């Protein structure tokens, strides 16, 4: 467990540093004042928290500041983390043991959000937990997407079912389910092609994958996860909304949080849609897909994780 937390922290160390840099005048200074509040506002906006959450955090810190003008930077950070924790209450997704075999997890999202990489990492993770996993390469559209997944699968020694480029994605999913069933697999992870949520016909293709899987098992795909690039701004909320409307999302995976982006948009998505967040992508290695923890996230963002503040 300690190793896990460490990994999470390491991945976020850069994030923490970035926000600390920006807010050095607030959280590292002794006292809060009007200027530092303004800086804090900027820091929160630039973390993509959005208007609502930023206003909420600021309001609470201002209230505390009005009540006690000797408010310390550390206390302000704690208030911020507490508000964030409150806003995100219940946002942690936990994958239950597979109720049926195979339990299907479909990874969907816009182009370049990291679906293929996440599918591979997730398979590796489940395999590490002793589950038997099959990957379905249903991105038959993007050039070499199948090769990309296969290459991961070879590296991590995971079975993958694929077809030729341009094949019908739903047909691949159908076959993969059959294969997974026959071999008694616990999970089938379906990697799909990237699609912008504004393209109706591509959204229809997702519905078809679902319909076809339901011919095997009416409850499939049991998990429908949206993979969101953590460096995107408010548009990710729009993405989540549309995917949710047409596909009924059950979870989120937020990727690419090992940079300086703080993934604040995930707060916006949670606020609006209450879709639990299962994993964060904190790096390029297979083990860098880490379970989402509200506490760790809030602490990391406000630089409170055991570092000297």
């Amino acid at each position, binding site marked *: 467990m300690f190793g896990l937390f460490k990994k999470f922290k390491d991945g976020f160390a*850069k994030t923490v540093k*970035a926000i600390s840099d920006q807010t050095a005048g607030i959280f590292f200074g002794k006292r809060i004042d009007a200027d530092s509040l303004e800086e804090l506002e*900027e820091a929160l*906006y*630039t*973390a*993509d928290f*959005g*208007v609502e959450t930023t206003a909420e955090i600021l309001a609470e810190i201002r209230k505390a500041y009005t009540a006690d003008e000797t408010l310390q930077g550390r206390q302000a950070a704690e208030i911020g983390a507490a508000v964030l924790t409150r806003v995100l209450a219940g946002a942690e997704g936990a994958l239950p043991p597979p109720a049926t075999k195979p339990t299907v997890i479909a990874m969907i999202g*816009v*182009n*370049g*959000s*990291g679906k293929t990489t996440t599918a591979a990492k997730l398979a590796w993770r489940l395999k590490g937990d002793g589950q038997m996993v099959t990957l379905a390469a249903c991105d038959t*559209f*993007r*050039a*070499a*997407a*199948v*090769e*990309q997944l*296969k*290459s*991961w699968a070879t*590296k991590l020694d995971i079975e993958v079912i694929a077809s030729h*480029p341009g094949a019908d994605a739903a047909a691949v999913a159908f076959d993969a389910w059959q294969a997974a069933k026959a071999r008694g697999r616990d999970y089938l992870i379906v990697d799909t092609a990237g699609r*912008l*949520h*504004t*393209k*109706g*016909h591509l959204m*229809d293709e997702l519905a078809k994958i679902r319909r076809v899987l339901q011919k095997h098992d009416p409850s499939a795909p049991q998990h429908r996860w949206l993979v969101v*690039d953590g*460096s*995107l*701004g*408010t*548009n*990710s909320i*729009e*993405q989540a909304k549309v995917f949710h409307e047409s596909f009924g999302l059950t979870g989120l995976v937020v990727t*690419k949080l*090992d*940079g*300086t*982006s703080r993934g*604040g*948009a995930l707060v916006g998505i949670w606020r609006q849609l209450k879709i639990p967040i299962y994993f964060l992508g904190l790096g*390029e290695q297979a083990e860098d897909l880490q379970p989402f923890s509200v506490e760790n996230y809030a602490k990391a963002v406000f630089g409170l994780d055991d570092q000297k503040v």
Partner: protein
Amino acid sequence: MFESLTEKLGSALRNLRGVGTLTEANMADALKEVRTALLAADVHFKVARDFVERVQTQCVGQEVLKGVAPGQQVVKIIHDELVRLLGEGETNLSAARPLKILMVGLHGSGKTTSTAKLGKLLKKRGYRPLVAACDIYRPAAIDQLEILAKQEELSFYADRASRDVPAIGAAALAAASADGSDCVIFDTAGRLQIDANLIEEVKKLRAKVQPDEVLLVVDGALGQEAVNVAKTFHEALSLTGLILTKLDGDARGGAALSIKSITGVPIKFIGMGEKTGDFDTFYPDRLASRILGMGDVVSLVEKAQEHIDQKDAERMAEKMRKADFNLEDFLAQMQQVKKMGSMQSLIGMMPGMSGVEVGPDAEKQMARTEAIIHSMTYQERRKPEVLNGSRRQRIANGAGVKIVEVNQLLKQFQQMQKMMKMMKGGGGKKMMRQMEMMQRQGKGGFPGM
């Protein structure tokens, strides 16, 4: 793509109606909303603040011109400021030959796809491009580029055994000069701007190949992070341009404003779709107009010019004039429209229609119409009158549609022919009546006409 920003600016400015002079007081509310709208559109915090301040300075004290709504006047000021911000600078590529272009960016921003699109575009402009695979990290990235290169008939260079990126770059240059290519586009791996090792690697590649253009590929939906990304890449690599991708989505694209105003690097291209044809030169004034919901007619016209053969069009017009227009011509016309891109991307350029969703139906309808004509023999296409019941049934079976749809198509076609004959006969008024009737029938003529 900037619909939401447009909407928000619109509602913020509506309150300004019926005001005599623009003052700080009557502007305050509106400008606050403009700032919020900009922030919600992912424009960077500081950029939004500066933008609002500039607009305010320009507006205060201005008398509202006669005959112009104050809102419109402010829109004009905001529009001008947006154009300025987006930069009227150099959006053309360097004229050097051979032209060397380095593509850089974060993971998943669309570098490989953009490399292929750019190659295609330059080929159309008379270059002989070679695309070089310098992404040795992402599994199958090289395969992806190779497939795209083959698809677009571009020369391709890769060295799957090498792990030395600068050396790959140098070898690609040599390969290009050997096969007579006069343009090399280097597709590099996605990298975080804070990954010192990878930034060092691409710096070395840059030093080795001495590119004329270093283009940063940025996802149009990028958030506040855009500024950090652009700044660091710019410091490390001296960017010469930006490519904004995935603007066929509904991202508000505030990142474009942020990056442009913070780094000053001009936006050179925008990616509007997954197909390799959906790549456009960036025009700041058009984008500003789009932001304000004025449409992008110029782009539409240019697109039409580029894809529609002038002679073909004249021949077609002549045929129409002589009312000698058959189903084969109709099919050709439809295919020309299709060449211009997806219906959605065309509709998006029309004034006042930026928010309109075509939906898959129109495209589907067009595909069905095409299938029906494809299922006819050449004779049938030229002389639709020979189509009796059994022929129609055969066509319906062939196209996988109901016979009703075949009948519908033929009926519409007859109406169109009738109209053409009327045009020929100079029966203008009669024709108008006919058109109104068609519209009332709810069909509005043929898809794609």
